[in-house]
Protein backbone atom coordinates (compact mmCIF):
# COMPACT_ATOMS: atom_id res chain seq x y z
CA UNK A 1 0.00 0.00 0.00
CA UNK A 2 1.22 3.47 -0.78
CA UNK A 3 2.37 5.40 2.27
CA UNK A 4 -0.47 7.93 2.80
CA UNK A 5 1.81 10.57 4.29
CA UNK A 6 3.50 10.87 0.91
CA UNK A 7 0.39 12.69 -0.25
CA UNK A 8 0.21 15.13 2.65
CA UNK A 9 -0.25 18.84 2.03
CA UNK A 10 2.81 21.01 2.51
CA UNK A 11 1.37 23.16 5.31
CA UNK A 12 1.22 20.34 7.83
CA UNK A 13 3.42 20.21 10.94
CA UNK A 14 6.79 18.60 10.36
CA UNK A 15 7.87 15.38 12.06
CA UNK A 16 9.29 17.12 15.14
CA UNK A 17 6.19 19.26 15.55
CA UNK A 18 3.98 16.18 15.21
CA UNK A 19 5.95 14.34 17.87
CA UNK A 20 5.80 17.31 20.24
CA UNK A 21 2.06 17.70 19.72
CA UNK A 22 1.53 13.99 20.35
CA UNK A 23 3.69 14.12 23.48
CA UNK A 24 1.54 16.96 24.81
CA UNK A 25 -1.65 15.05 24.00
CA UNK A 26 -0.43 12.04 25.91
CA UNK A 27 0.61 14.28 28.83
CA UNK A 28 -2.97 15.67 29.04
CA UNK A 29 -2.03 19.20 27.97
CA UNK A 30 -5.33 21.12 27.86
CA UNK A 31 -4.70 22.95 24.58
CA UNK A 32 -3.02 20.14 22.63
CA UNK A 33 -6.28 18.62 21.33
CA UNK A 34 -7.43 22.00 19.98
CA UNK A 35 -4.06 22.51 18.28
CA UNK A 36 -4.26 19.01 16.83
CA UNK A 37 -7.67 19.80 15.36
CA UNK A 38 -6.49 23.14 14.03
CA UNK A 39 -3.51 21.56 12.32
CA UNK A 40 -5.09 18.43 10.88
CA UNK A 41 -8.88 18.71 10.53
CA UNK A 42 -9.10 20.56 7.22
CA UNK A 43 -6.12 18.81 5.58
CA UNK A 44 -7.65 15.49 6.58
CA UNK A 45 -11.01 16.36 5.01
CA UNK A 46 -9.27 17.58 1.85
CA UNK A 47 -7.29 14.36 1.64
CA UNK A 48 -10.39 12.21 2.19
CA UNK A 49 -12.38 14.10 -0.45
CA UNK A 50 -9.52 13.74 -2.94
CA UNK A 51 -9.14 10.03 -2.31
CA UNK A 52 -12.85 9.21 -2.16
CA UNK A 53 -14.04 11.41 -5.01
CA UNK A 54 -17.20 9.39 -5.57
CA UNK A 55 -18.38 9.87 -1.99
CA UNK A 56 -20.29 12.78 -0.57
CA UNK A 57 -18.24 15.36 1.26
CA UNK A 58 -20.42 15.01 4.36
CA UNK A 59 -19.25 11.45 4.76
CA UNK A 60 -15.61 12.52 4.51
CA UNK A 61 -16.32 15.21 7.07
CA UNK A 62 -17.85 12.69 9.45
CA UNK A 63 -14.91 10.32 9.03
CA UNK A 64 -12.42 13.11 9.75
CA UNK A 65 -14.39 14.04 12.87
CA UNK A 66 -14.35 10.45 14.11
CA UNK A 67 -10.65 9.93 13.42
CA UNK A 68 -9.59 13.11 15.20
CA UNK A 69 -11.97 12.61 18.09
CA UNK A 70 -10.69 9.06 18.60
CA UNK A 71 -7.10 10.31 18.75
CA UNK A 72 -8.02 13.18 21.08
CA UNK A 73 -9.75 10.72 23.41
CA UNK A 74 -7.04 8.13 23.26
CA UNK A 75 -3.73 9.66 22.11
CA UNK A 76 -1.82 6.48 22.96
CA UNK A 77 -3.62 4.74 20.09
CA UNK A 78 -0.87 6.29 17.97
CA UNK A 79 2.54 4.92 18.83
CA UNK A 80 5.21 7.13 17.22
CA UNK A 81 7.77 4.32 17.50
CA UNK A 82 5.63 1.67 15.89
CA UNK A 83 4.04 3.98 13.32
CA UNK A 84 7.29 5.76 12.62
CA UNK A 85 7.03 5.25 8.89
CA UNK A 86 3.72 7.05 8.48
CA UNK A 87 3.81 9.88 11.02
CA UNK A 88 0.84 11.36 12.84
CA UNK A 89 -0.97 12.66 9.76
CA UNK A 90 -0.47 9.33 8.01
CA UNK A 91 -1.96 7.62 11.04
CA UNK A 92 -4.96 9.95 10.93
CA UNK A 93 -5.39 9.28 7.21
CA UNK A 94 -5.48 5.52 7.76
CA UNK A 95 -7.82 5.89 10.71
CA UNK A 96 -10.17 8.22 8.80
CA UNK A 97 -10.19 5.94 5.76
CA UNK A 98 -11.24 3.06 8.02
CA UNK A 99 -13.98 5.33 9.39
CA UNK A 100 -15.15 6.01 5.84
CA UNK A 101 -15.52 2.24 5.32
CA UNK A 102 -17.34 1.86 8.64
CA UNK A 103 -19.71 4.70 7.83
CA UNK A 104 -20.44 3.21 4.41
CA UNK A 105 -21.17 -0.16 6.02
CA UNK A 106 -23.51 1.52 8.52
CA UNK A 107 -25.25 3.37 5.72
CA UNK A 108 -25.76 0.13 3.78
CA UNK A 109 -27.17 -1.60 6.88
CA UNK A 110 -29.46 1.36 7.45
CA UNK A 111 -30.67 1.24 3.85
CA UNK A 112 -31.43 -2.47 4.15
CA UNK A 113 -33.35 -1.99 7.39
CA UNK A 114 -35.42 0.90 6.10
CA UNK A 115 -39.05 0.21 5.62
CA UNK A 116 -39.46 1.06 1.94
CA UNK A 117 -42.53 1.19 -0.20
CA UNK A 118 -41.13 -1.81 -2.02
CA UNK A 119 -41.10 -3.84 1.18
CA UNK A 120 -44.69 -2.84 1.84
CA UNK A 121 -45.54 -3.99 -1.69
CA UNK A 122 -44.12 -7.41 -0.95
CA UNK A 123 -46.07 -7.69 2.26
CA UNK A 124 -49.39 -9.49 2.50
CA UNK A 125 -51.04 -6.07 2.26
CA UNK A 126 -50.37 -5.75 -1.43
CA UNK A 127 -51.90 -8.31 -3.71
CA UNK A 128 -54.15 -6.45 -6.05
CA UNK A 129 -51.90 -5.98 -9.05
CA UNK A 130 -54.00 -5.93 -12.15
CA UNK A 131 -51.46 -5.65 -14.95
CA UNK A 132 -49.15 -8.23 -16.47
CA UNK A 133 -45.55 -8.44 -15.21
CA UNK A 134 -44.26 -6.67 -18.34
CA UNK A 135 -46.87 -3.93 -18.00
CA UNK A 136 -44.87 -0.68 -17.75
CA UNK A 137 -47.46 0.79 -15.42
CA UNK A 138 -47.01 -2.04 -12.92
CA UNK A 139 -44.45 -0.27 -10.72
CA UNK A 140 -46.78 2.71 -10.43
CA UNK A 141 -49.74 0.47 -9.67
CA UNK A 142 -47.71 -1.28 -7.01
CA UNK A 143 -46.64 2.01 -5.52
CA UNK A 144 -50.21 3.31 -5.44
CA UNK A 145 -51.38 0.05 -3.95
CA UNK A 146 -48.74 0.22 -1.26
CA UNK A 147 -49.61 3.85 -0.53
CA UNK A 148 -53.29 2.96 -0.26
CA UNK A 149 -52.49 0.09 2.09
CA UNK A 150 -50.22 2.24 4.23
CA UNK A 151 -52.80 5.02 4.49
CA UNK A 152 -55.99 2.99 4.99
CA UNK A 153 -55.23 -0.52 6.11
CA UNK A 154 -52.16 -0.28 8.30
CA UNK A 155 -53.62 2.06 10.96
CA UNK A 156 -56.61 -0.26 11.37
CA UNK A 157 -54.36 -3.33 11.53
CA UNK A 158 -52.14 -1.73 14.14
CA UNK A 159 -54.99 -0.66 16.40
CA UNK A 160 -55.21 -2.87 19.44
CA UNK A 161 -52.03 -4.86 18.83
CA UNK A 162 -49.69 -5.58 21.72
CA UNK A 163 -46.14 -4.15 21.58
CA UNK A 164 -44.80 -7.60 20.63
CA UNK A 165 -47.37 -7.98 17.86
CA UNK A 166 -46.48 -4.50 16.59
CA UNK A 167 -42.81 -5.51 16.40
CA UNK A 168 -43.72 -8.65 14.47
CA UNK A 169 -45.93 -6.61 12.14
CA UNK A 170 -43.07 -4.21 11.43
CA UNK A 171 -40.79 -7.14 10.63
CA UNK A 172 -43.42 -8.65 8.31
CA UNK A 173 -43.75 -5.33 6.50
CA UNK A 174 -39.99 -5.18 6.10
CA UNK A 175 -40.13 -8.55 4.41
CA UNK A 176 -38.10 -10.22 7.14
CA UNK A 177 -38.00 -14.00 6.72
CA UNK A 178 -35.57 -15.19 9.38
CA UNK A 179 -37.24 -16.84 12.36
CA UNK A 180 -34.29 -15.87 14.54
CA UNK A 181 -35.08 -12.18 14.01
CA UNK A 182 -38.68 -12.72 15.11
CA UNK A 183 -37.51 -14.77 18.09
CA UNK A 184 -35.28 -11.92 19.21
CA UNK A 185 -37.98 -9.29 18.64
CA UNK A 186 -40.47 -11.30 20.70
CA UNK A 187 -38.01 -12.23 23.45
CA UNK A 188 -38.49 -15.97 22.90
CA UNK A 189 -34.83 -16.87 23.14
CA UNK A 190 -35.33 -18.93 26.30
CA UNK A 191 -37.64 -21.41 24.56
CA UNK A 192 -36.65 -24.50 22.59
CA UNK A 193 -36.30 -24.09 18.84
CA UNK A 194 -39.51 -26.01 17.99
CA UNK A 195 -41.43 -23.87 20.49
CA UNK A 196 -39.89 -20.70 19.02
CA UNK A 197 -40.89 -21.72 15.49
CA UNK A 198 -44.43 -22.60 16.57
CA UNK A 199 -44.97 -19.34 18.43
CA UNK A 200 -43.49 -17.20 15.66
CA UNK A 201 -45.63 -18.97 13.08
CA UNK A 202 -48.75 -18.50 15.19
CA UNK A 203 -48.04 -14.77 15.55
CA UNK A 204 -47.32 -14.30 11.86
CA UNK A 205 -50.46 -16.25 10.85
CA UNK A 206 -52.55 -14.19 13.23
CA UNK A 207 -51.24 -10.94 11.81
CA UNK A 208 -51.60 -12.06 8.21
CA UNK A 209 -55.22 -13.03 8.88
CA UNK A 210 -55.83 -9.69 10.52
CA UNK A 211 -54.31 -7.87 7.54
CA UNK A 212 -56.44 -9.82 5.08
CA UNK A 213 -59.63 -9.21 7.05
CA UNK A 214 -58.92 -5.48 7.41
CA UNK A 215 -58.05 -5.16 3.75
CA UNK A 216 -61.20 -7.01 2.65
CA UNK A 217 -63.29 -4.75 4.85
CA UNK A 218 -61.75 -1.61 3.38
CA UNK A 219 -62.09 -2.83 -0.21
CA UNK A 220 -65.74 -3.72 0.37
CA UNK A 221 -66.53 -0.30 1.81
CA UNK A 222 -64.59 1.72 -0.80
Amino acid sequence: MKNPSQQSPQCLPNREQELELHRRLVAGDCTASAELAQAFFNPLIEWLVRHNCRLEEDLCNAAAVEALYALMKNPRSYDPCREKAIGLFGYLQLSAQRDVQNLLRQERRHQRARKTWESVEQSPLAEKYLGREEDPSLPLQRKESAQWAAAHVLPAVRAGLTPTELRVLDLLLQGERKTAVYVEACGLGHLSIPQQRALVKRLKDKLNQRIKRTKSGHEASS
Partner: protein
Amino acid sequence: MKHPLDPLARRVEDDPAFLGCLLRLYAQSEGLAEERLVEVLGCQRDTLNLLRLCRAPAEEARAFQKGVEEISRTFTVHPDALADVLRRGQALIQLSRPGPSQGTLTAARDAAIPTEDKR
Protein backbone atom coordinates in the same frame (compact mmCIF):
# COMPACT_ATOMS: atom_id res chain seq x y z
CA MET B 1 -22.02 31.66 9.67
CA LYS B 2 -20.40 28.25 9.48
CA HIS B 3 -16.95 27.84 11.00
CA PRO B 4 -14.41 25.30 9.77
CA LEU B 5 -14.13 23.35 13.02
CA ASP B 6 -17.88 23.29 13.75
CA PRO B 7 -18.45 19.54 13.14
CA LEU B 8 -15.59 18.51 15.41
CA ALA B 9 -16.55 21.06 18.06
CA ARG B 10 -20.10 19.66 18.03
CA ARG B 11 -18.72 16.13 18.40
CA VAL B 12 -17.09 16.94 21.75
CA GLU B 13 -20.07 18.82 23.19
CA ASP B 14 -21.42 15.74 24.97
CA ASP B 15 -18.07 14.66 26.34
CA PRO B 16 -17.22 16.14 29.75
CA ALA B 17 -13.52 15.57 29.05
CA PHE B 18 -13.67 18.59 26.73
CA LEU B 19 -14.40 22.25 27.28
CA GLY B 20 -17.14 22.09 24.66
CA CYS B 21 -19.36 20.21 27.09
CA LEU B 22 -18.69 22.59 29.99
CA LEU B 23 -19.26 25.66 27.81
CA ARG B 24 -22.52 24.23 26.51
CA LEU B 25 -23.82 23.48 30.00
CA TYR B 26 -22.85 26.92 31.24
CA ALA B 27 -24.51 28.65 28.29
CA GLN B 28 -27.67 26.59 28.77
CA SER B 29 -27.82 27.36 32.47
CA GLU B 30 -27.55 31.07 31.75
CA GLY B 31 -29.72 30.97 28.64
CA LEU B 32 -26.88 32.44 26.60
CA ALA B 33 -26.64 32.40 22.84
CA GLU B 34 -23.24 31.83 21.28
CA GLU B 35 -22.60 35.53 20.70
CA ARG B 36 -23.19 36.32 24.37
CA LEU B 37 -20.95 33.46 25.49
CA VAL B 38 -18.18 34.92 23.37
CA GLU B 39 -18.68 38.24 25.14
CA VAL B 40 -18.61 36.63 28.58
CA LEU B 41 -15.34 34.89 27.79
CA GLY B 42 -13.90 37.98 26.15
CA CYS B 43 -12.75 36.09 23.07
CA GLN B 44 -13.30 36.10 19.30
CA ARG B 45 -15.99 33.92 17.70
CA ASP B 46 -13.31 32.03 15.79
CA THR B 47 -11.62 31.19 19.07
CA LEU B 48 -14.74 29.61 20.54
CA ASN B 49 -14.42 26.35 18.60
CA LEU B 50 -10.78 26.04 19.59
CA LEU B 51 -11.79 26.52 23.22
CA ARG B 52 -14.45 23.82 22.83
CA LEU B 53 -11.79 21.43 21.57
CA CYS B 54 -9.51 21.92 24.58
CA ARG B 55 -9.39 19.22 27.21
CA ALA B 56 -11.11 20.20 30.44
CA PRO B 57 -8.62 20.93 33.22
CA ALA B 58 -8.44 18.49 36.12
CA GLU B 59 -10.70 19.33 39.06
CA GLU B 60 -7.94 19.55 41.65
CA ALA B 61 -7.40 23.26 42.45
CA ARG B 62 -3.79 23.64 41.34
CA ALA B 63 -4.20 21.63 38.15
CA PHE B 64 -7.43 23.48 37.40
CA GLN B 65 -5.73 26.84 37.80
CA LYS B 66 -2.81 25.75 35.64
CA GLY B 67 -5.16 24.52 32.93
CA VAL B 68 -7.22 27.71 32.95
CA GLU B 69 -4.08 29.86 32.71
CA GLU B 70 -2.70 27.79 29.87
CA ILE B 71 -5.94 27.94 27.89
CA SER B 72 -6.42 31.66 28.58
CA ARG B 73 -2.88 32.45 27.50
CA THR B 74 -3.03 30.35 24.34
CA PHE B 75 -6.40 31.57 23.10
CA THR B 76 -6.56 35.03 24.69
CA VAL B 77 -9.52 34.48 26.95
CA HIS B 78 -10.34 36.25 30.20
CA PRO B 79 -9.03 33.75 32.83
CA ASP B 80 -11.45 34.64 35.64
CA ALA B 81 -14.44 34.39 33.34
CA LEU B 82 -13.17 31.09 31.95
CA ALA B 83 -12.63 29.68 35.46
CA ASP B 84 -16.19 30.65 36.48
CA VAL B 85 -17.67 29.10 33.34
CA LEU B 86 -15.72 25.86 33.76
CA ARG B 87 -16.50 25.49 37.46
CA ARG B 88 -20.20 25.95 36.73
CA GLY B 89 -20.04 23.41 33.91
CA GLN B 90 -18.28 20.87 36.12
CA ALA B 91 -20.83 21.38 38.88
CA LEU B 92 -23.70 20.87 36.43
CA ILE B 93 -22.14 17.64 35.19
CA GLN B 94 -21.86 16.41 38.75
CA LEU B 95 -25.46 17.34 39.47
CA SER B 96 -26.69 15.54 36.38
CA ARG B 97 -25.22 12.23 37.54
CA PRO B 98 -27.29 9.78 39.54
CA GLY B 99 -25.79 8.23 42.65
CA PRO B 100 -24.83 8.97 46.25
CA SER B 101 -22.49 11.86 45.40
CA GLN B 102 -25.25 13.74 43.59
CA GLY B 103 -25.59 17.31 44.77
CA THR B 104 -22.14 17.65 46.26
CA LEU B 105 -21.04 19.96 43.45
CA THR B 106 -17.75 18.13 43.17
CA ALA B 107 -16.20 18.67 39.78
CA ALA B 108 -15.96 15.60 37.59
CA ARG B 109 -14.81 14.43 34.20
CA ASP B 110 -14.77 11.65 31.65
CA ALA B 111 -18.23 10.18 31.79
CA ALA B 112 -21.26 10.46 29.61
CA ILE B 113 -23.92 12.93 30.65
CA PRO B 114 -27.57 13.11 29.65
CA THR B 115 -28.13 15.00 26.42
CA GLU B 116 -31.89 15.49 26.34
CA ASP B 117 -31.49 19.17 27.09
CA LYS B 118 -29.06 19.64 24.22
CA ARG B 119 -29.94 22.53 21.99
